[in-house]
């Protein structure tokens, strides 16, 4: 990935789950430009790690388990777009950490 943290934008969509409620289905957006330098750099690292381990789109279409949630992360940087998807339980630490970071710092 390119290395301009300020241009990084991440969108997280959470779908399904026992508590599938309309308000929670709204996407969560996070712009690195809105973060301090330290958090922006952390977001960049997390995105790089998650994109590096993300399964192929075909492989990531695994059926959700009953009441499991689906996660779709869209990582935009300039003209480049990467998509990372996962379902519960998110067993890949790099993806779980990125989801947690976006949930914590992003806005619906």
């Amino acid at each position: 990935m390119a290395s301009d943290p300020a241009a990084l934008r991440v969108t997280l969509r959470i779908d399904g789950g026992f508590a599938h409620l309309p308000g929670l289905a709204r996407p969560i957006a996070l712009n690195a430009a809105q973060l301090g330098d330290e958090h922006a750099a952390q977001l960049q690292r997390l995105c790089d790690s998650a994109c590096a381990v993300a399964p192929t789109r075909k492989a990531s279409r695994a059926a959700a388990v009953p009441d499991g949630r689906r996660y779709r992360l869209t990582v935009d940087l300039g003209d480049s777009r990467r998509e990372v998807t996962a379902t519960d339980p998110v067993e890949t630490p790099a993806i779980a950490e990125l989801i947690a970071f976006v949930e914590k710092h992003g806005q619906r």
Partner: protein
Amino acid sequence: MCNAADHESRPRSMLCILPPYILREIAKNGTAEQRAAALEALGVDQAIRDQRAAAAPASRLASAIPPKRTGKRAAPKPRRTIYTAAGSQKLPGKIVRKEGAAASGDAAVDEAYDGLGATFAFFLEACQRNSIDDAGLPLDATVHFGRKYDNAFWNGSRMVFGDGDGKLFNRFTVALDVIGHELTHGVTEREAALVYQGQPGALNESLSDVFGSLVKQHALKQDAEAADWLIGAGLLAKGVKGVALRSMKAPGTAYDDRVLGRDPQPAHMQDFVRTTDDNGGVHINSGIPNRAFHLAATAIGGKAWEFAGRIWYEALRDPRLKANANFAAFAKLTVAVAGRLYRPRGREAAAVAKAWQQVGVL
């Protein structure tokens, strides 16, 4: 632990699990409902199984009935193991409480343990089913899954519960019907194996809500009229405008909150929601069959698990219920099962048929 059953004409019950826990926090959100429950673990009387076999000649039941035995035998007992993921998403996590061990002092651990016990007791006493697979399958659950994780799910072999974020949701073990809901996914998986998409998926979800609610009603010894018919009462954190995640009695009215939005569940087929989200709206359109069950149970009256619950359970187990069944297929089956279990065109079958008509399915 409960350990008693004999072979008298009726199962003997023992007061065996007194969950001190579950619903202390349910007064949050202004519902003010306090729950206290004493659970009985009953032995399964062979006579009940024999009656049931006679009443259900052509079903999966046959393979589930153990050989007739003579003399005394121990009642089935749960075999529970509770794990903690300690904030990670690694399953199964570390064992924190095994069957028979004393309370841990960790509310989520003890609620999961007691909730699994209540669910096991419900399926044993009300459905004569010995655990998820009707063969005594051990019950495993993992709590403290993830960080501020707002969900609970069934992964095919265990129940998994998050702690909630504390702002929108309390911990997911707080509501007994949620625990019953997740375990019922395991039952459905082993019976009709309804696909988790569209109408069969919404039916799958509805069955988990139906039996989740019945687990709670059974624990509280409530009549259909007295039950709250809510799914996840106590789960919404203080300050959230709502009483639960879903209402079986009045789908679409459980919450209306600035952050969470408004309960989108339809109560009638004319409002069926077509969407690609949520596996085709499995948690949304489940409101329709949920309401049908409530209508049938309250029309028949008494304890909901004794008649309506039994009809739904036997329909779930009926080999005619296909994995891709839609609402109408399940509805027709419940009417047929009601006639077979009780009387063709009797009051039970009529109540079930009318309930499905009232929600626009039949």
